[in-house]
């Protein structure tokens, strides 16, 4: 299944590149000496033959659209091909909604996906869809078929979502007392080194100048002491509220193993519950924080 998808992917990407329909296809290639995968920028049909598709393809490649060299290609009117799982395609939808990319300037190779493996969990033996080794986001996945694509690779009917609650780990936290949550987060954030891997891995963090870099006024203290780390993560969470597609890349990218993705995934859940909005599902939908309903929750207001 994965192998036939991989062949289809190579074929499609190769076609796009040989027809010069796109300047580059951003996909996955072999990682360190064949161990795992990493992003691959295919610029020629030959390079497209190096594209891979398997359950280690965790990265959300949409983050590359706002970085070099894709940014430059898009700015000069060129076209970029991008390999997207369902969750990645949700990020593309948000980028479209927010005017960061034009629909015609990206060719989305959508991949039907039945889950990717959690690189943090033990990799031995587990296959996607069968065990706890898939990422939490893959449990009960609603976007095994991407909500946005130009070419679809894989059989939508054949995909089976992993069982379980995608927000289970978040709910564990919710069931704690306030004090327990506080010590959970301070324990973790004490390790934050402010390398901004969470921000850089995030496809939604495309601002040319991040609020962390603004010094007049200094919104967020630069030091990575707890105060500076908490302020950073709180403000980042609010910047992502209603926009986060729960791809979990922030948590995966963190070299200090801080589960920052829990914050954004929690808020995404809250936004969905209160405002009936799930980010990245429909390019035509109005984002949660660009609209309102008169009967929005207001019991907290005096």
């Amino acid at each position, binding site marked *: 299944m994965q192998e036939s998808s991989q062949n289809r992917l190579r074929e499609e990407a190769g076609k796009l590149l040989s027809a010069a329909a796109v300047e580059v296809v951003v996909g996955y290639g072999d*990682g360190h000496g064949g161990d795992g*995968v990493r992003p691959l920028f295919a610029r020629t049909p030959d390079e497209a033959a190096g594209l891979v598709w398997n359950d280690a393809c965790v990265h959300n490649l949409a983050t*590359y659209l706002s970085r*070099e060299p894709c940014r430059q290609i898009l700015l000069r009117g060129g076209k970029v091909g991008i390999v997207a799982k369902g969750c990645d395609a949700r990020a593309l939808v948000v980028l479209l909604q927010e005017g960061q990319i034009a629909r015609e300037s990206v060719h989305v190779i959508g991949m039907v996906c039945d889950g990717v493996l959690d690189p943090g969990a033990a990799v031995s033996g587990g296959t996607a869809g069968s065990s706890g080794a898939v990422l939490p986001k893959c449990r009960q996945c609603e976007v095994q078929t991407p909500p946005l694509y130009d070419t679809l690779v894989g059989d939508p009917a054949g995909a089976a979502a992993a069982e379980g609650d995608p927000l289970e780990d978040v709910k564990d936290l919710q069931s704690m007392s306030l004090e327990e949550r506080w010590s959970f987060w301070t324990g973790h954030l004490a390790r934050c080194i402010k390398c901004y891997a969470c921000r850089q891995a995030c496809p939604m963090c495309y601002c040319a100048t991040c609020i962390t870099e603004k010094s007049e006024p200094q919104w967020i203290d630069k030091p990575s*002491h707890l105060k500076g780390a908490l302020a950073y993560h709180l403000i980042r969470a609010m910047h992502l509220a209603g926009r986060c597609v729960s791809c979990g890349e922030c948590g995966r990218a963190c070299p200090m*193993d801080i589960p920052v993705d829990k914050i954004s995934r929690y808020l995404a859940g809250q936004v969905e519950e209160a405002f009936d909005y799930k980010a990245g599902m429909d390019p035509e939908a109005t984002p949660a924080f660009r609209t309102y309903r008169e009967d929005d929750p207001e019991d907290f207001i005096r």
Partner: protein
Amino acid sequence: MVSKSDLSSVIARAVSAGYEVYAPGKRNGKVYLEKADDGASPELDHVITVNGVKDILLPRCEPLADFNLTDVSIESIDAPAAGRVLLATRPCDAASLVILDAILLDPARDTRYARMREETVVVTVACSRADAACFCTSMGYGPHDETGSDVILLPAGDSYLVRPLTEKGKAFIGEVGLEADAGGEPDSPPQLTRTVRTEGLKAWLDENFESEKWRDVSINCIGCGACYYLCPTCHCFDITDEAGVARGRRYRIWDCCSFADFTKMAGHQPRVGRHARYRQRIMHKFKYTVDNVNLTACVGDGRCIRHCPVGVDIGEILESLPEGGAARRGGPEPGSREG
């Protein structure tokens, strides 16, 4: 000889001798070099800690001074002078200190680092294991290398042979009741699976500031600071103030050339583009530091490879730049030191 299980009592004795002890400890399944209390037992089976020793000696967030903004006075905050011991650090981390010393102690002197460093005893536990990211041997070091260590503990079965390497190290083992082993046969060091060829690298870097290769090798990089901040030899810093109404504080914090605002001045940005910033990283480690202090600023600890969220692999990149010069290792040549 000291048995592996006795290392916790070494910690206890060091603590009661007044040392601040830093040792590998496990949190959420990962091993970090962190402050160890009396009674802690160090992790010993890991390959390497997530953070490097610079996390202790060149802290990521170091208060420099307090300001009173009402009468505008400064109160300097001295670097902690208490003796500290880095226990069970790895040979590559110990070697990183020799590189930091060369950069930070001469000709300009980082007085804070100097004070911390003078008061630090480095007790290394040689490696029994290496992973796919380790490439210390390619940088001129090795799993049993003594560079930068005051004492090295060489694994021998369930115990370690104790080899003091400096006067500081000798004094320390005396204080904690360890005895030096003159003889003894340590376990053979682990074989590394990765070699990184650096022949010709320096010569290539000397000539190729402008090369299209920089764009190619940095294409995957997303511009975060993970590799910089975990690297034991990356030492760039920023100085920043925090202020309330009446009081403020100045900090020295880590900073890195990956970030656009690293070199950005009001109205001028000399280093434009991610490839230029990645070039600075490679150039700084493998050319500029060699030009200035005759050392390569890399110990092959592999952290940048292990923790890159997008699989950027410095080993592959170094090999892909030139064809064919060996890295300049720090410290005396292996085996040349007495002790």
